[in-house]
């Protein structure tokens, strides 16, 4: 196990290194830098002044030097300064991460809490009206653009409650916070829950055909015991893998949701930072996201070990 952890850690570093190169190169392949953008957004084109800004920010140095400076800083915990706000990157990203993290976590919890039992029910009642109804509902989750769902929720709230559940100021209490994030989390989580439901259903169907389920029945186990005790634990295995995929996907889904619900999280911030070519923000944020995805994947793998005794990462 220890050697497995070391191996995984090394591979994670390798991935992160690749990611750093990729995002760094990608950003610089995109035409325009902060100088172009602040100037051109203002409708001006003054090359001398632009060069001045570039020099100030160190953008005139060779790419490799810029990269080494960034990575060097990163290793020492120095994330540099945002080009746009001219504040330390950490101050910009720091307070926003928990917001998105909470949102993402709630969305994930929502999707699991909704998706898993419905998936089981749908599988157990395969080809009944209930199964059809649940599948149709889950598909509607997959076929509704998330911004659209979010807007509908907002309109509904305004129409019927006369209030709008958007973020206008930081919530005071934990309860407020939960309340505030619950609706956007549900809006994003609905999609994932649909995915989880579908996956749970199909893997449940798979598991229910297995011999050991027949064994359980032959030993007199009740339906509930068969479905939720004997089958679900096996069926949940493939479902855990998509948690990792969803973690990566959530960032994308959250951009839209954060925009519509006006939540000042990192997802939307990232978009703006890209539009401004605020390299320090984008690079560090993408690295952070990559770190999260890699760690989540790792945790999912560990979860696998917990859930499935057959897997031993001793190699």
């Amino acid at each position, binding site marked *: 196990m220890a050697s497995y952890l070391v191996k995984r850690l090394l591979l994670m570093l390798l991935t992160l290194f690749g990611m750093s190169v990729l995002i760094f190169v990608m950003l610089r392949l995109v035409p325009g830098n902060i100088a172009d953008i602040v100037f051109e957004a203002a409708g001006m084109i003054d090359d001398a002044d632009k060069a001045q800004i570039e020099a100030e920010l160190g953008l005139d140095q060779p790419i490799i030097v810029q990269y080494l400076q960034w990575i060097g800083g990163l290793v020492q915990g120095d994330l540099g300064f945002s080009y746009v706000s001219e504040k330390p990157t950490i101050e910009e990203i720091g307070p926003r991460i928990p917001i998105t993290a909470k949102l993402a976590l709630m969305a994930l919890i929502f999707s699991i809490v909704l998706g898993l039992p419905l998936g089981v029910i749908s599988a157990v009642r395969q080809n009944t009206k209930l199964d059809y109804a649940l599948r149709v509902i889950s598909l*509607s989750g997959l076929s509704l653009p998330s911004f659209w769902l979010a807007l509908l929720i907002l309109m509904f709230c305004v129409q019927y409650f006369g209030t709008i559940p958007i973020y206008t100021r930081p919530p005071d209490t934990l309860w407020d916070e939960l309340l505030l994030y619950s609706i956007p989390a549900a809006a994003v989580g609905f999609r994932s829950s649909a995915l989880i439901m*579908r996956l749970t259903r199909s893997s449940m169907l798979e598991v229910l055909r297995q011999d050991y389920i027949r064994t359980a029945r032959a030993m007199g186990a009740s339906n509930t015991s068969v479905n939720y005790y004997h089958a679900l634990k096996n069926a949940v295995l493939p479902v855990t893998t998509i948690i990792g995929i969803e973690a990566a996907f959530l960032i994308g889904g959250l951009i839209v949701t954060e925009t519509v619900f006006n939540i000042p999280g990192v997802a939307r911030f990232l978009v703006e930072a890209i539009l401004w070519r605020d390299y320090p923000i984008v690079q560090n944020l993408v690295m952070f996201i990559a770190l999260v995805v890699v760690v989540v994947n790792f945790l999912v793998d560990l979860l696998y070990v917990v859930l499935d005794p057959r897997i031993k990462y001793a190699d």
Partner: protein
Amino acid sequence: MTTVDHSAELARAGANVTGWASRTLFLANRYPLGAFGAVIVILFVFAAIFADVITPVDPTSTNPAKSLMAPGGQALMGADFMGRDMYSRVVHGARISLAVGLGSTALGCLIGVIIGLASGYLLGWFDLLVQRVIDIMQALPLLVMALVMAASLGPSLENTIIAISIPLIPNVARVIRSNTLAIRELPYVEAARAQGMSEVRIAVFHVLPNTLAPLIVLATAQLGAAILTEASLSFLGLGIPEPHPSWGRMLSESAAEYVRTAPWLVIFPGLAISLVVFGTNLLGDAVRDLLDPRQRS
């Protein structure tokens, strides 16, 4: 328990089904949702192919007189605020949206399959590196990449397809790789090897066809997702540029502002997206069931 109506049970099981037509009917009966999906998909493909024939008006021609006209005799599904005919736009939109869906799915699957096969076959350092690349692809948020592409390449059908296909690659590659690892050890692969078949041929003729079922599930799920993603990308500046009608664009934020005053602007493209996503997924489910050897008699 005394008298059992065997014939009814048999009919439900599809006994005595012969011939093309009755087999189709039986399958439709057996997989009603799948059949529903197939009908939807066929309808939309038909609409996309014959868009020019079945729509009376050029979907890009504006007309102040028809601006925000409600659905009715003059405009079947109403008109948008530029007075463009919504029916024409929805039908022509099928072309682009299906192109995005099919294109990105095909591209993503193709690359994913190649990577997955190569990785599962060559193993070793190659596999290790490819897996890292796949990790990276997975960790790079789609919308980040889409934004970067939008800024650098501009919105276009090709770019949209490429952007959407990229996140599919790691998923496909993973599935194919793990299947390849399992299948390459199977006796029939070994038998082929024993006959002197080259590894590439084995990969293509023996391994690939047997990973088809999960691929189909992934692909149909993706087909729908891609159409929606195009909508999100329109939201962020990638996607299909105006004036070409795409469902995503029609649904994107500007239309949302008219939801109260001109709901038909969102209802019809929204319906179209939902139907296609629905259709492909239902069809995919059914095809997966059909391909499952345990479901075959």
